């Protein structure tokens, strides 16, 4: 026992060094794997309040671009107003018995507005922080859309008043994407090289593509509403080893001046995820496999 104490006394600096290193590695490993870390909830409340103060100043420099995006979105919404269309003259239609109200629709997506208060594009793993948290109904895995409706990220960590989102500019981000023209789907990724170049994978060579084709979120995505703009094809090449195109996509959102965003909740997401998991379990579990 005495020797142990002597050892600790002699090497206490080195032992402290090792201890602090191990704590750092533990933080890093748990964050990389589950996006969780000790004290992160408390730390985020502090960084969030400082960031939101700083953001008040920074926002002024992005107002013009922001205004244009909002105006475009307003324009597209104005096109949908019922006042734009005329009602059909019902007197000329023969009456039928309608037992089911076929006009009634179920709500699937809920939009919540938020402000981006901290954002980077230079790292390989970029996150941005928004000023809404669990107290305002934000949950993990919700999608984040820019003020013009284009996709920008997914929420990964939530504290009471703030939330962190994984940007599309994150090497671990995978978004279910589809070509607007044909509906063929692939995966949108980022290789960490340049913030204006995303990579679309999984589109077969047999498909005819042109530069400028639109890439939107796919209907298969659990968190993103379908048909939201992701970007446009900016360069095309073929990989001889595989049967797929190598497609570079210019993102629709300018990640350098994110300001106002929408957080989108898919109300059926839990059900979809559960169904997916149960189905997999039933098929892949060896107990359920028929001989």
């Amino acid at each position, binding site marked *: 026992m005495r020797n142990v104490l002597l050892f600790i006394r002699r090497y*206490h*600096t*080195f032992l*402290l*060094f090792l201890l*602090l*290193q191990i*704590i*750092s*590695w*533990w*933080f*890093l*490993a*748990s*964050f*990389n794997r589950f996006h969780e*870390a*000790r004290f*992160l909830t408390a*730390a*985020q409340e*502090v*960084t969030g309040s400082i*960031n939101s103060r*700083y953001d008040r100043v920074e926002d002024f420099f992005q107002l013009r671009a922001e205004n244009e995006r909002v105006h475009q979105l307003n324009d597209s919404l104005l096109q949908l107003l019922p006042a734009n269309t005329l009602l059909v003259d019902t007197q000329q239609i023969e009456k039928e018995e309608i037992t089911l109200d076929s006009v009634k629709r179920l709500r699937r997506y809920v939009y919540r507005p938020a402000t981006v208060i*901290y*954002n*980077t*594009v*230079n*790292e*390989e*793993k970029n*996150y941005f*922080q928004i000023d809404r948290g669990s107290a305002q109904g934000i949950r993990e895995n919700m999608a984040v859309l820019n003020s013009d409706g284009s996709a920008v990220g997914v929420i990964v*960590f939530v504290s009471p008043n703030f939330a*962190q989102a994984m940007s599309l500019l994150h*090497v*671990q981000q995978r978004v279910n994407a589809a070509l607007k023209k044909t509906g063929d789907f692939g995966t949108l990724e980022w290789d*960490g*090289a*340049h*913030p204006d170049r995303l990579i679309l994978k999984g589109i077969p060579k047999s498909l005819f593509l042109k530069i400028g084709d639109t890439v939107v979120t796919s209907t298969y995505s659990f968190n993103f509403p379908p048909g939201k703009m992701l970007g446009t094809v900016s360069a095309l090449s073929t990989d001889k080893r595989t049967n797929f195109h190598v497609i570079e996509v210019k993102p629709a959102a300018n990640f*350098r001046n994110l300001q106002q965003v929408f957080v989108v909740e898919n109300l059926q997401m839990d059900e979809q995820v559960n169904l997916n998991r149960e189905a997999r379990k039933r098929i892949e579990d060896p107990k359920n496999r028929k001989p």
Partner: protein
Amino acid sequence: MTGFIRYFFRALLLVAVQVYLLNKVPHLHRLVLPSLYFVFVLWLPFSMSRTGLLFTSFLLGLSVDYFSLTPGLHAAACVLIAYLRPYLITILMPRDTQEFQYPEPAVKAMQWAPYVVYILILSFVHHFYLTFLQWLSVGSFWSFLGKTLLGTLISFLLILTADLLFPRQQSYRTNTA
């Protein structure tokens, strides 16, 4: 006490510069990630105990980490340079001046050549370890190498610029006072 307040504000300033200025510079190249905050560890006083050095550096690294959402990454690198710092100072400073005449490492206190070597080695170690930890989760060998070397170079230039722009007023310590 005044010393503590001075270092506290220096840490606040450096973290703010790192988080709001250097992390947000327009994207130049994927390998260019300027970093300056760790100069706080290099500029801590000679008289600080090694335990104190380790704890202070850990807290500094962690505060940058929580802003950039990389918990533990910068903390690990800062703790490493804080651990190596005393050994490097003993090697670089002449042996007979155990009683340091200036409170903290600077050009005046160490002369140009040893100070430049001191900055270069610790910046390199910091960037090497930082990018190595990042490389474990993502990236290729060449991006690791390029990031380490370019990062060291940029940090070195930034530190020298900071040294020239903001000369730290250091009083010469004598026995008479």
